[in-house]
């Protein structure tokens, strides 16, 4: 167990080389002050009881094995770019209505639209729950996408590579989608031996944002991500994350619905097999309803075996006056053996009287009757189990709107389940 002093030394080491200057300077200084005030988390912090932050707290990452090679998620006509160990590849030429820039390149310039986003959504997302790794990211990130869509429906496809076996990667993406515009963001792969990715998304009234993320099938991954979104009236935010294995994966979504009749959906499928290395898959969600007639939806499913651990912490906060809120939350796990565990903390906090909010959380095993039904038709036990896993995940997969991307996710899923080749 690291002491306070040790944590502080580690933090000092990590902050020493933080970038200075440019349009992000003020945000970095403010984030540094926030971070030093809150410190790094320990197991006694309310939102870190289930997930040990030690490997995220350490000054240096543990060298990781190379990731398993796999085809990137792709979409026709997508604008593709790569980050390897935090270094950006060439920026594709963007069509009219879409600006793609890089944090690393833009850092020296004084005026930039991203200046009003960088660190701002992160800062407002620190209340009421502290998110120190997001603040750390704002201080230290050297690279990231600056993506602004003013018209049209571009698709941007980001592929990550680790760069080196001990890369400690901080990426910070700023996104703004203007009124009536639409953006699809695809992310795939592992960004570093240890990686910390923050995405800040600002949606203007009526803007639409789709996010599909696949976090790689490799076991030796330590990742923390945060998505902070500000969702204006009539806007739509939809995010889906697919993850396999990984030593420590924590995905946080902090969604602030500020305009009436807006929609926020987050969903995830995580598959954990702890046979080779320990696996921990953590989804932590905080959705704030601050406007009238908005809908939020959280659908998370986990399949765990061989000692894998799944964590879900999901909160819906309905502020005073946020009437006609429709909030839905479900988190379910399928445990394929008795060694695995699922730890769930669903929370509702409601200060308006005309709202509909529901939450449910279940942990279960494979249904024996269904398994027997499939086997009685000649399907072997392993394959029958795999089909029932697909069945369990079906309504989370259904959250992916684009059928071509859903097919790619299902293909990865079938591959993990060993259903791939025989089909």
């Amino acid at each position, binding site marked *: 167990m690291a002491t306070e002093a040790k944590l502080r030394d580690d933090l000092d080491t990590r902050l020493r080389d933080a970038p200075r200057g440019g349009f992000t300077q003020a945000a970095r200084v403010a984030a540094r002050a926030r971070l030093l005030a809150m410190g790094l988390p320990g197991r006694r912090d309310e939102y870190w009881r289930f997930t040990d932050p030690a490997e995220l707290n350490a000054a240096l990452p543990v060298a990781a094995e190379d990731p398993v090679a796999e085809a990137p998620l792709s979409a026709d006509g997508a604008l593709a770019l790569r980050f390897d160990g935090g270094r950006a590849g060439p920026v594709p030429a963007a069509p009219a209505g879409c600006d793609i820039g890089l944090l690393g390149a833009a850092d020296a310039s004084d005026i930039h639209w991203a200046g009003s986003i960088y660190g701002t959504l992160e800062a407002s997302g620190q209340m009421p729950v502290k998110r120190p790794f997001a603040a750390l990211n704002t201080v230290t990130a050297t690279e990231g996408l600056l993506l602004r869509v003013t018209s049209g429906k571009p698709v941007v496809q980001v592929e990550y590579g680790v760069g080196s076996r001990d890369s400690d990667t901080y990426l910070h993406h700023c996104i703004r989608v203007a009124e009536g515009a639409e953006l699809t963001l695809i992310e795939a792969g592992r960004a570093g031996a240890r990686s910390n990715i923050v995405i800040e998304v600002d949606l203007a009234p009526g803007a639409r944002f789709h996010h599909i993320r696949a976090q790689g099938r490799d076991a030796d991954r330590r990742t923390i991500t945060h998505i902070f979104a500000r969702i204006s009236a009539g806007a739509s935010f939809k995010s889906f994350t697919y993850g396999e294995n990984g030593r420590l994966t924590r995905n946080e979504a902090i969604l602030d619905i500020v305009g009436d009749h807006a929609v926020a959906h987050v969903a995830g499928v995580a598959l954990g097999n702890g046979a080779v290395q320990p696996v921990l898959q953590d989804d932590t969600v905080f959705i704030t309803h601050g406007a009238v007639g908005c809908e939020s939806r959280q659908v998370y499913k986990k399949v765990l075996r061989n000692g894998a651990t799944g964590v879900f912490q999901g909160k819906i906060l309905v502020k005073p006056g946020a009437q006609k809120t429709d909030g839905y939350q479900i988190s379910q796990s399928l445990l394929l053996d008795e060694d695995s565990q699922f730890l769930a903390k669903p929370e509702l906090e409601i200060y308006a009287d005309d709202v509909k909010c529901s939450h449910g959380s279940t942990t279960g095993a494979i249904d024996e009757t269904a398994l027997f039904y499939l*086997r009685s038709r*000649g*399907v072997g036990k392993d394959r029958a189990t795999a089909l*029932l896993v*697909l069945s369990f995940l*079906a309504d989370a997969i259904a959250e992916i709107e684009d059928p071509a991307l859903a097919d790619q996710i299902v293909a990865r899923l079938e591959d993990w389940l060993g259903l791939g080749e025989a089909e």
Partner: protein
Amino acid sequence: MLKIQNLHVKLEAEDKPILKGLDLTVETGKVHAIMGPNGSGKSTLSYVLSGRDGYEVTQGSAELDGVDLLSQEPEERATEGLFLAFQYPVEIPGVGNMTFLRTALNAQRKARGEAELSAGDFLKLVREKARALKIDAEMLKRPVNVGFSGGEKKRNEILQMAVLEPKMCILDETDSGLDVDAMKLVADGVNALRAPDRAFLVITHYQRLLDHIRPDVVHIMADGRIIKTGGPELALEVEQNGYADLLAEAK
């Protein structure tokens, strides 16, 4: 075809004997019916033959064409040609009926050393079978049994039977939950599958299913054994007089 000798079975969990020395032989090409009151062990017999967990065979044997069934896994028994039509077919959301059927058929073909069917060939086969059974192709596109009516679920069982082409079919209270019209449709499906190289064991409470699926032999089961065997007239006798007389006679 199916030969059961002195079969004794108890519930694993409760140490409660259910089958108590059951003997039954079903010949190739024949339809046998088993009737009996509630709790006589009819459904247990179908589960034990198909390999469901939770039962312990303490004595006796069951063979399909000379192959010992009781030592095999459920999928191995299916590959040997055994098929159980469930009393309550299971709903499997998110798995398409076609995927399910093709997975099952190809698993059996592979286990028998036969070539697996391509998606195209399989589609052709299923459409042909569905047409013969007057089953709407729309049903094939839906997830397995999800949102199906009672009648549709039972017809889906018959479709599976038609596609998998088993040699020994057990129908476990296929008439339960069906209205008269639905029962007739299901019975028509079964009758269409009657063949010289295929046998049926029809388990039912009531005689009315046997009006539509005419059995060659009727067995009365009570307290874990076959207590009487006869022709189709035995079913009529039960319908008119109930089981009381037969049970008294057996004692």
